[in-house]
């Protein structure tokens, strides 16, 4: 005989509350867990007050091992021997997370607090810092005079030159891989990837030997731009390739079926469809190079003046400006360095945020 659903009990069942019985822990185990959480903290706090060991040392050398041991015991009590390995991993994973938070906030915080001084004087926002150049300034000149206007312009010029070279070639490379699909595609990808590993200083050395030492061009914005282009190209090519790959094949075959040439398919159909993605590729490429110092140290050097001719003279740029001022024994110079670093970081953050927003839009649209 079979049993049928007892409809009369449905009312009773509808009174049930959803529960999570697996989250409940028996009282004695809760005690263990509380001890494990509090005891190490208390011990460390006491040691901090009564000894003069520095804070960070205490945290790593005393708190971490204590917390590991305490958590180990708590785990042993709640889950048995299997739990100990888990507790070690969890405590350390949380530690690693806190560590990276601390580093990031330390870097960003120091930029804000120390760079602030350069951008904010007694009368408020010091726009002179952003606009003026350093022609008559020496390291001990007070901060009201001089600025990084010339460095900002220099960075813009160099990045522009680099983009003009790297973006078309990068996009062309991506087109070769996804549209032309020649036989050499795996080789091209290999070379692009190899190129992305070239250290920035090597890029600078290359431009130095090929063009500067041989006398073809002098140390200038153009040379710096070429060095940047070498570093920018792989990023632009790789991102553009990913983006072009996302364009559905139907778009291409449809255009071809209408009698379009391959070239027109790419230029008039595929690229416009991938517009946002290509802009993202460009922005990521720029963000990748804009903070690079080493290649500029070898190619465009530095300057105190505002230079507009990209071919003739050495030119200032934000990274080299920072580099020059970092280790000078004058507090004014150091503050300038922090100020420039703050400006550079803000630019990089803006670029990354734009790239991220564009990237998200692209993902949403393709769904």
């Amino acid at each position, binding site marked *: 005989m*079979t*049993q*049928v*659903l007892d409809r009369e009990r449905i009312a009773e*069942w509808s009174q*049930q509350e959803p*529960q999570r019985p697996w989250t*409940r822990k028996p009282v004695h185990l809760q005690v263990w867990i509380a001890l494990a959480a509090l005891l190490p903290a208390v011990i460390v706090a006491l040691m901090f007050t009564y000894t003069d060991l520095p804070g960070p040392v205490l945290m790593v050398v005393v708190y971490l091992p204590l917390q590991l041991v305490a958590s180990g015991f708590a785990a042993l009590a709640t889950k*048995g021997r*299997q739990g100990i390995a888990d507790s070690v991993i969890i405590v350390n994973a949380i530690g690693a997370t806190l560590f990276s938070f601390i580093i990031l906030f330390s870097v960003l915080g120091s930029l804000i607090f120390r760079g602030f001084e350069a951008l904010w004087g007694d009368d408020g926002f010091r726009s002179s810092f952003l606009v003026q150049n350093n022609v008559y300034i020496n390291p001990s000149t007070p901060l009201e005079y001089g600025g990084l206007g010339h460095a900002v312009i220099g960075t813009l010029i160099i990045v522009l030159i680099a983009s003009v070279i790297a973006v078309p070639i990068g996009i062309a490379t991506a087109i070769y891989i996804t549209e032309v699909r020649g036989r050499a595609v795996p080789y091209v990808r290999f070379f692009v990837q190899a190129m992305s590993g070239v250290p920035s200083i090597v890029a600078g050395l290359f431009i130095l030997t090929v063009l500067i030492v041989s006398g073809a061009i002098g140390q200038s914005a153009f040379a710096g731009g070429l060095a940047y282009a070498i570093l920018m190209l792989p990023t632009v090519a790789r991102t553009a390739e990913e983006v072009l790959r996302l364009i559905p094949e139907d778009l291409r075959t449809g255009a071809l079926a209408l009698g379009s040439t391959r070239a027109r398919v790419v230029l008039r159909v595929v690229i416009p469809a991938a517009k946002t993605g290509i802009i993202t590729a460009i922005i990521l490429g720029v963000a990748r190079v804009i903070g690079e110092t080493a290649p500029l140290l070898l190619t465009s050097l530095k300057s105190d003046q505002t230079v507009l001719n990209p071919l003739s003279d050495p030119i200032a740029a934000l990274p080299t400006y920072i580099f020059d001022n970092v280790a000078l024994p004058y507090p004014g110079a150091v503050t300038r360095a922090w100020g420039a670093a703050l400006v550079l970081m803000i630019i990089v953050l803006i670029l990354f945020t734009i790239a991220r927003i564009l990237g998200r839009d692209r993902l949403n649209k393709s769904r």
Partner: protein
Amino acid sequence: MPTAEYEGDVEVLEDQFAGKPNVGPIELESRDVSVWFGQRKVLEGVNIAFPKKTVTALIGPSGCGKSTYIRTLNRLHELIPGAALAGSVLYEGKDIYDTDVDPVHIRLKIGMVFQKPNPFPSMTIRGNVLSGLKLSGMKRDGHDEIVEQTLTSAGLWNEVKDRLDSAAGELSGGQQQRLVIARALAVQPHVLLMDEPCSALDPASTLKIEETIRELSKEITIVIVTHNMQQAVRVSDYTAFFLAAENEPGYVIEQGPTTDIFSNPQDQRTLDYVNGRFG
């Protein structure tokens, strides 16, 4: 009313279960189990008792909560974010959701085989069989014997005894599923939950696994979710029929000995389902 199609199967069943004991002690039982994902109630009031050393089939259209239900039986349900439940699941008389019950212990005693065979590709065949011991920390002696015994019970020993150290990924789908069964057996479960174990396999492998199930049920209790009604008839002693109406949680509409469910169901919906009129 029994339909002509099932006459033959009923005879088969009566032969098969000729030597079987009547409903004896209960191995596992769910009482008033209701399941939620977030705010959505997907199952309500499931009361099923699984007698020792029998095979129970859970049948019903897709999406009415059968797979969700069996995951409450070995405490895998709680690993899904947003999961909640009410009611109790009794194993050996004790609620497995009590605070002093170790979920690892439950999962060792109540094993699971999934729809898609999932042996660990980075391990050898031998390694896969013994992987449960390493993953749970269970200690057993005589690894070689364990490998041979479980593979034999799973009906795979003869095919792989000469290549125990080859990669598990090289086996066919049916062989992988039997390997997975051996892996589950290595930790000595008393219950084996099977979630549509044959739906991804070819008919020949399916039959082999059904044979394995019948053999295994002499030692352990088996609960099998299946869409294949002929399989339910071939393999199970008891059957429970699940159904969920639109926007409502799933219920067990009818349950009982397989012969009765298929030849003499009381509920019209059960009759319709087993006659293939929907689902």
